[in-house]
């Protein structure tokens, strides 16, 4: 009997939850805000769905209802991707170690 591909995806899902669990516990508490903004940015990978929707059931001449929803979803995901990664970058650049030499 063949295994339904769903089971494979479920396995990936469950194992990823465990990876997430261990990786996130190792995140230092001082970086919890960047953690939230970066998880927010990566969850915008939902843009892959928005891309399929943007190009779905098209005959190349007109735009369907699904396409419009897709474009809208692309815009939202793009705000999140650019906004999320850039703001994370901006925050991470602020985290500095104590300077060894006193410069004053």
């Amino acid at each position, binding site marked *: 009997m063949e295994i339904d591909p769903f089971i494979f995806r479920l396995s990936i899902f469950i194992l990823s939850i465990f990876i997430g669990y261990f990786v996130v516990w190792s995140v230092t508490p001082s970086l919890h*805000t960047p953690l939230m903004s970066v998880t927010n940015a990566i969850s915008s*990978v939902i843009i892959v769905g928005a891309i399929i929707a943007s190009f779905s059931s098209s005959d190349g001449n007109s735009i369907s209802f699904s396409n419009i929803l897709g474009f809208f979803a692309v815009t939202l995901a*793009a705000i999140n991707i650019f906004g999320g990664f850039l703001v994370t970058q901006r925050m991470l650049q602020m985290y500095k170690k104590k300077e060894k030499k006193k410069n004053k």
Partner: protein
Amino acid sequence: MSANLSALLFLITGVLFILALRGLSSPETSRMGNFFGITGMILAIIVSILSVNIFFINLFYFIIALSIGGVVGGIIAFKIPMTAMPQLVAGFHSLVGLAAVLVAISAYYSPDSFGLGTFQNIKTASIIEMGLGASIGAITFTGSIIAFMKLQGLMSGSPISFPGQHYLNALLGILIILLMGYLTVNQSTQIFWILIVASLLIGFLIIIPIGGADMPVVISMLNSYSGWAAAGIGFTLENTALIITGALVGSSGAILSYIMCKGMNRSFLNVILGGFGTDNSSGGTKETTEKKPVKSGNAEDAAFLMKNASSVIIVPGYGMAVAQAQHALREMVDKLKKNDVKVSYAIHPVAGRMPGHMNVLLAEANVPYDEVFELDDINNNFANTDVAYVIGANDVTNPVAKTDPKSPIYGMPVLDVEKCKSILFVKRSMSPGYAGVDNELFYKDNTLMLFADAKKMTEDIVKYLD
């Protein structure tokens, strides 16, 4: 692009995202981590575009949509002040939620392009996953909007509750499950839309009774939801990158919620059911009516105390963020360091409005992160410290959490500020903190209350330190 190749590349995206989170285990590796994240995202977008049939007209609008989003996102990222991070993150969560809903609707109407069957004849597993993704996405969307409005001050931060609220929520919850079951059977368009509307409504209803200081839990919870919504859509689209990411984000948000609840010694359910800090029936409030003597001082006294101390611990809280006092604080600390005073910062897990909120603000003010300590790492040091400078924090320093079992905050881990030789407490008035509990620290002999705006007071102290 062949399906196998794109599936492999999506797997790589997933791995890059894992590395992105892994990088955050220390500030040194974090920037590399963010780079991995960006690479993973670019890869995912390229692979998706190469996997669809491209028509010029669709591509044209797609590029416009992407550019608008990119420009808006970029502007927000550069303009946003660091004190506004909690509402920004809440706002971003709402976008992920809405995007999930839109993708689900699109998949419902054109299942053929998603490879899920034909309209109203979608594979059973897919319709369940789609319904789940749409429902969780909708809850995330409205919930995050309420959280955003509360944090931005567009709506009162105090809990909003009405009789029968929990019953209504429970009823809606059951309705959503029933609708989901019904949708699986007949795939009716009306049911699909009612499901979305019911989910939007419950997202709104579960967040309104939760008060401002519980926002760290709410934001983390919504972070988690946005992950589960993405995972739901990932199952629908049979896309590994989305499934992995959804699982990572979902568990990340869940862990943060757990850490925040633990920081308040409250159960998750207790926070979600809301209304904390509204009932005055709890013990301790009675005593507030009695007037106890309080010593209050001015900036000069505070400057004198700190200048002559050998060690100072700074305890920042949400009040520091509201007053934007972090830069003034850093200036004060610089002056103190010149006087050979040892200064460190103590951060309570739930200080501020989101996990790590205080750390970001201090980092923005150029405070080196190795001077900033978490509760467990610094709590033993209060006993041999001369001065504690409490700026904008209250409940997290209240010793009543350790002594009075009747207090609503009893059992909450607190910073042992009372063990310091002297305590400087910057506060605008004597009003109790969020939990509505009087803070015993105010009445201690070695406490000096500094009644002023946090920023103003700190700036004044800086002047007297010269």
